[in-house]
């Protein structure tokens, strides 16, 4: 947790879901311009309970149950942002961000650029993403690559409670639109002690979650944990794996990516999204462009298969998602290449 700027003391372990809730509560308490809008975010506290208690604490002017319409959730948040507020727009499932695609990509991302700084759009779009929760086809998707392609947006996908809280707070304070992806498969755990106080983690910085010597694996979200597991398993075989947590998907931390590639010369990128043009494609292309002659092996990608989305039936869902074993297998291959 290299990048924490906090010096406060530690307390009991928290989940990613609690981290999200705490970040919102603290920022809403700190800054009256922060509002939350989305479906069921009010009395219901959100379908995942991410905003439980916020409605009671901040009232229905700042915690807004919106109509069932994602385009206007984001669109109205943009209108509130240009007028001086700092909205958090919740999309109930990342799969349902697509009706708001135009508002996110053509509007939010371009407000500042198209007005040459006449207007800004400080806005956070929060969306639970990813699978392993029996939500196929439409409650399990990884949609981050669509947004990571878009200049003008920042795209964040933390994997641990400390990063989740620290990055969400940074996102809320950011002057530009941030799409904030929370992997729903890790809402409940693993838990972690989050530094108390005003814990901020900067957007744009990756984090070496486990240093290693022989192979690098680069991931984010739930996959980060499966990579850590694979690294742990391979340690017993004498293979030392460096695990880099991207944390931010736009802008990518090019320096950290190239550093680990140069260090080990063997890189695998792991993501749950469909392989082609997923985030790993850009990570790989970056390395192929800037660190090719430091490599001792091809750049591998372990990713979701090329089917439209993760299926529902348990055996198919398991098949879709890269497993710790599958990742270990790939890393073993790289290490002995």
């Amino acid at each position, binding site marked *: 947790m290299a990048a924490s700027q906090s010096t406060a003391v530690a307390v009991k372990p928290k989940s990613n879901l609690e981290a999200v809730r705490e970040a919102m509560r603290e920022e809403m308490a700190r800054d009256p311009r922060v509002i939350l809008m989305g479906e069921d975010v*009010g009395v219901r506290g959100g379908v995942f309970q991410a905003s439980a208690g916020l409605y009671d604490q901040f009232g229905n002017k700042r915690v807004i*149950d919106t109509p069932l319409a994602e385009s206007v959730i984001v669109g109205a948040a943009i209108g509130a942002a240009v007028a001086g507020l700092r909205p958090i727009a919740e999309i109930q499932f990342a799969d349902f961000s697509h009706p708001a695609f135009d508002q996110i990509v053509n509007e939010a991302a371009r407000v500042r650029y198209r007005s040459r700084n006449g207007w800004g759009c400080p806005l956070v779009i929060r969306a639970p993403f990813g699978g392993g929760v029996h939500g196929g086809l439409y409650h399990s998707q990884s949609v981050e690559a669509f947004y990571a392609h878009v200049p003008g947006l920042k795209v964040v996908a933390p994997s641990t409670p400390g990063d989740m809280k620290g990055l969400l707070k940074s996102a809320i304070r950011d002057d530009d639109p941030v799409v904030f992806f929370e992997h729903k498969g890790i809402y409940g755990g693993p838990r972690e002690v989050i530094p108390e106080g005003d814990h901020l983690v900067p957007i744009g910085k990756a984090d070496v979650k486990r240093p290693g010597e022989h192979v690098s694996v680069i991931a984010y979200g739930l996959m980060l944990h499966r990579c850590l597991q694979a690294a742990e398993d391979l340690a017993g075989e004498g293979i030392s794996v460096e695990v880099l947590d991207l944390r931010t998907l736009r802008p990518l931390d090019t320096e950290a990516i190239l550093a680990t590639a140069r260090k080990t010369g063997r890189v695998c990128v792991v993501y749950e999204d469909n392989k082609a043009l997923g985030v790993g494609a850009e990570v790989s292309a970056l390395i192929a462009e800037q660190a090719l002659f430091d490599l001792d092996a091809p750049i591998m990608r372990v990713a979701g298969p*090329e089917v439209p989305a993760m299926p529902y039936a348990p055996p198919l869902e398991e098949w879709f998602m890269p497993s710790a074993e599958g990742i270990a297998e790939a890393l073993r291959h790289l290490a002995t290449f």
Partner: protein
Amino acid sequence: MARKQGAAAEARAPATDLPAERLLGMYRTMVTTRAVDERMWLLQRQGAIAFTIPCKGQEAAQIGAVAAFDPSRDWFYPYYRDVGVMLSLGMTPRDVFLGGFGKFDDPESGGRQMPYHWSLPKARVVTGSSPVATQIPHAAGTGMALQLKGEDGVVFCSFGEGSTSKGDFHEGVNFAAVRKAPVIFFCENNQYAISEGLEKQMAVRSVAERAAAYGIPGESVDGNDVFATYAVVRRAVERARAGDGPTLVEARTYRLMAHSSGDDDRNYRTREEIAEWAKKDPIQLFKEQLIRQGVLDEARAQALSAEVADEVDAATDAAEQAPWPEVADATRFVYAEGGNGRGR
């Protein structure tokens, strides 16, 4: 009749062209729908299936509406709660449970989609997704295709009242209205979209008022009354078949259970409100109507319920024992196999 809501059962007019046998069949489908719904809840609570989304309370709206269509030529875009619609169209309890488990024989998706994502090609029930209201433009397009092909089919398209907030509702109904496409837009207004009451979705008091924006008829009917729903939808279907374009029908009803197995409804509505609506239970009401008409009696109703219970037990077992999809199957049908041919 459509716009009035009778206070007592007696005030409703069960006059109908539906023969007794058909009515008994509909009653049986209603009872089966309820039993399937409750079994799905139980299976979910036991951890046997991942998810369910109950339709309890909405059976009359569903079964009354679909009865007005002709299964031999009409097209269907039901939404996730429409167990009653699907059982009316030939889906079996076993099929529903297969979908619940995600088994290979699930006729909708071979276990690929969460339960209740209907698809039944032989009955022209078109595959649906989870993002709500997306089927509304599809229904408009299918209606236009029928017009172009010179076929006289009518399209059934249902959704919840919350879903009328979405752009796809507006765009789909508007386009259908402009082209006078033969589509019945059937809104099951169960008063809530998850936790959000009607007043958070719209500043009108009835979904039927939305029809004025499209220059089409808007009808509001007591969705707990099979006869009333049937009559209103029947009229709409006749208009559509005659080339007079779409109708927006709102069936006023109530979701008696939580939104889904993942929902806890205690923080957004009172137990009293639910109890009040439970008194208007559509199955009880239909039963009383049929008994009053002499189509049904208590003994027969009980026998029928017992039969249905057995059927649902057997269907649960069959689904539970059915095979899972093979991993090798998961890569199939991303695209058509076997080159050029039919679209499906």
